[in-house]
């Protein structure tokens, strides 16, 4: 199919069929989530649930891909749904216009092949990962603050999230450091490449450790536990 011709051959025909049949749940439709959904849809993941109860705000415009001057005040997931219809109408977007929490987490992520983290707080990450463990779903973690980012892939049996979040407060340094346009784009790209490797069973995953990115110092360090 010509739409995906430039995916080949790093994505084979068989991989492409696997992606088309895969279900991915993206939690958050902000800085990371907008890029993640866009990239998953363009590469040909054809069933994407996107979860966020928030609306776009003027302060999102510096980095959140789906936000624009015309959709301020509108639901992030509904704007993402409409945007993706224009990008790739083969993609089924399931917009969930609510915040994920302890009561709805299992129900929302059930049935997906991968859950992708585009959340902005650690308490919810812990809740979601508990659901992932229960439902045996891999979780691709991503977090950003200023010039810095972290990415890792966590399978249900892995201890990674406990180590990452055991001492961490609910919010990180992002309130102080802000979030520029380039950090979410980079971290989202790495998260999507992890998702594609999980779905197509190829390559090496960022597991049992975490990739720490410092764009200010140009350091990319995988800290393996």
């Amino acid at each position, binding site marked *: 199919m010509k739409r995906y011709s430039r995916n080949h051959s790093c994505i084979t025909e068989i991989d492409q069929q696997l992606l088309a049949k895969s279900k991915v749940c993206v939690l958050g439709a902000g800085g990371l989530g907008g890029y993640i959904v866009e990239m998953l849809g363009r590469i040909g993941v054809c069933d994407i649930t996107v979860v966020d109860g928030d609306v776009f705000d003027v302060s999102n415009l510096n980095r959140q891909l789906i936000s624009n001057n015309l959709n301020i005040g509108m639901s992030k997931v509904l704007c993402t749904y409409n945007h993706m219809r224009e990008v790739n109408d083969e993609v089924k977007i399931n917009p969930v216009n609510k915040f994920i929490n302890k009561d709805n987490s299992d129900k929302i992520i059930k049935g997906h092949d991968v859950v992708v983290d585009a959340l902005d707080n*650690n308490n919810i990450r812990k809740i979601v990962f508990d659901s992932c463990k229960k439902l045996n779903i891999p979780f691709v973690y991503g977090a950003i603050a200023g010039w810095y980012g972290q990415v890792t892939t966590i399978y249900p049996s892995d201890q990674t999230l406990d180590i990452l979040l055991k001492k961490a407060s609910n919010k990180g340094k992002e309130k102080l450091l802000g979030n520029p346009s380039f950090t979410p784009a980079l971290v989202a790209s790495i998260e999507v490449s992890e998702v594609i490797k999980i779905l197509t069973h190829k390559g090496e995953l960022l597991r049992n450790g975490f990739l720490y990115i410092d764009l200010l110092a140009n350091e990319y360090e995988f800290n393996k536990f």
Partner: protein
Amino acid sequence: MEVKVKLFATLRDGRGKIVYIPFFDGITPAYILKHLNIRHEDVAILLVNGRDGEFEQKLLEEDYLSIFPPVGGG
């Protein structure tokens, strides 16, 4: 003998990337953090020789620490 401390991101401000602390029997990460004027709440990940570490664990000669501040945004 020294303990090598690798600092990351904002923890480097005013301290540098790598700091060496003289080793003594009983030295802990908590002592090193106090010495470097780093509050516990500014530490999200503390690794001792690349493994998950505790603030109060006793360090051995030639141990090294990696200390990361919290990053949580999306």
